[in-house]
């Protein structure tokens, strides 16, 4: 665990060594505010809950999480520091996991800083705080899924922009595959299992379940399996491509 810790510490420190982290957090908070209060019509709905906020968060993630994950490995490969890192007596998976964890905690911090919305809801009414907590948990797990995919794609290229766009596209597909429009495309002809599979693969299906306050183990397992699988894939890609 020490190894993971050391990597985690270095990564987090490097986020805050440049203004990038602060800019990210400010943009994240501003957009989530705009989405919740204007587009989500928080006040007009007259309900003291954060449904509006959680409805928009997958879309926010699609753009902002790839921006965090794109530099995870591309930057190491471009600057050559990967050679320094990978010849330390640490296993590839420890390094992959430490880097992922740093990014995940960073998103968690950004998420936690949206607390004024929670305060507002509590000030205006009496929301079910259990549901809100579940929503935050779901949102954090979902960001983990996005990041794990982003980490894998970042390992595959030296170019951060390419990593960003690839991650964005893959995450977009994974989000919209749970949408009624996409479902309709399949439901006319495809066997039921395929329709279910497409719906089940979607981030949205699992996230919505959690954010409604239903913490089903299966939904958490979905994100956990996704994260582990993509981190494992990241380790494979890193070992394969590190010398290119």
């Amino acid at each position, binding site marked *: 665990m020490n190894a993971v810790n050391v990597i985690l510490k270095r990564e987090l420190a490097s986020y805050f060594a440049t203004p990038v982290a602060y800019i990210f957090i400010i943009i994240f908070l501003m957009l989530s505010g705009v989405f919740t209060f204007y587009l989500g019509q928080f006040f007009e709905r007259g309900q003291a809950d954060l449904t509006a906020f959680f409805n928009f968060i997958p879309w926010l993630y699609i753009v902002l999480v790839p921006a965090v994950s794109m530099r995870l490995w591309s930057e190491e490969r471009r600057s050559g520091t990967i050679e320094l890192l990978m*010849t330390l007596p640490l296993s590839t998976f420890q390094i992959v996991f430490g880097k992922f964890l740093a990014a995940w905690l960073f998103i968690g911090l950004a998420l936690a800083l949206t607390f004024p919305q929670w305060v507002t809801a509590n000030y205006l009414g009496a929301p079910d705080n259990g549901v809100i907590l579940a929503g935050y948990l779901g949102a954090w797990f979902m960001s983990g899924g996005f990041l794990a995919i982003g980490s894998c794609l970042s390992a595959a290229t030296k170019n951060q922009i390419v990593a960003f766009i690839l991650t964005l596209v893959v995450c977009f597909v994974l989000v919209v595959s749970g949408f009624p429009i996409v479902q309709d495309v399949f439901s006319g002809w495809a066997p039921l299992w395929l329709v279910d599979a497409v719906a089940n693969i979607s981030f949205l299906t699992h996230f919505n379940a959690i954010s409604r306050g239903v913490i089903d183990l299966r939904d958490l397992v979905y994100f956990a399996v996704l994260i582990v699988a993509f981190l494992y894939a990241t380790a494979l890609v890193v070992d394969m491509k590190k010398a290119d």
Partner: protein
Amino acid sequence: MISVSNLSKSFDDFRAVKDISFSVEAGEVLGFLGPNGAGKSTTMKMLTGFLSPTSGKVSVLGHDMSLDAISAQEHIGYLPEGAPSYGDMTVKASLVFIGEARGIKGKELAERIASVVERVALGSVLSKRIENLSKGFRRRLGLAQALLHDPKILILDEPTDGLDPNQKHQVRELIRNLSEDKIVIVSTHILEEVSAVCTRAMILANGEILFDGTPSNLASKSGFHNAVTVRVTNLQPALISALEALRNVERVQQGELDQLVIFPIDGQSILADINQVLHAQGCQVEELHVEVGRLDDVFRKLTMSATEGESA
């Protein structure tokens, strides 16, 4: 001890390293020499476990690199080519990171950092960000990172590249003063470096070992080995023909300022014979010395013929 057997590495259809074998014992300072693209860096990357070989085996202090890289890497300090480091960190933070990643903590880490900072003279930039440092400082930071855990094995890829002559001298001193039970492998294309720090030299070209021996062995392969340079006042043609007539002299070359370079046959010692001739002719000698051999001459001879062989 490092032992390398039948090591090969291919990138797609390019064979960067071709079936090389050698071993290095504690106390040796091995210099990898070779033109760019000879396979020096690739070999070093395999020695440190960064690259896996296409075939063959690397064993470091008894640990097989392909089976137990981490145990091997614990004993290795590595300066990669170009001395990469994390630009957004300070020098101090970077050293702490490397130390902690190697499992050194607390007071011991502070002591190690202090000692290594002194050895490579980084004290003045400890709290500066690496991206703002000059090339020389970055190189020295790279060295500090490699030396931090006092490894038994040091692998340094072009440690003096980009340094000014004083800094080069410092780094060579540093390598020479490392304790005697260490294995040091340095790559360079500066030939004087080999005779300055190495106990053993290896010339690589096209992924093959062309020469493996001591630097003086290497020098003796030069056409200039045991050649004698003479300068006399009032050079007479008679002297040249007398010298050319000597039994072991191959040829006499006249250089600038009436300097003569006399090449022996098969590197034999010819100084005594030349001395006699000079005495007999009553020449006034201004300069007289025996060449050990010119490394760049051997280097060119060895590597050029290898490249020609490749293209033929």
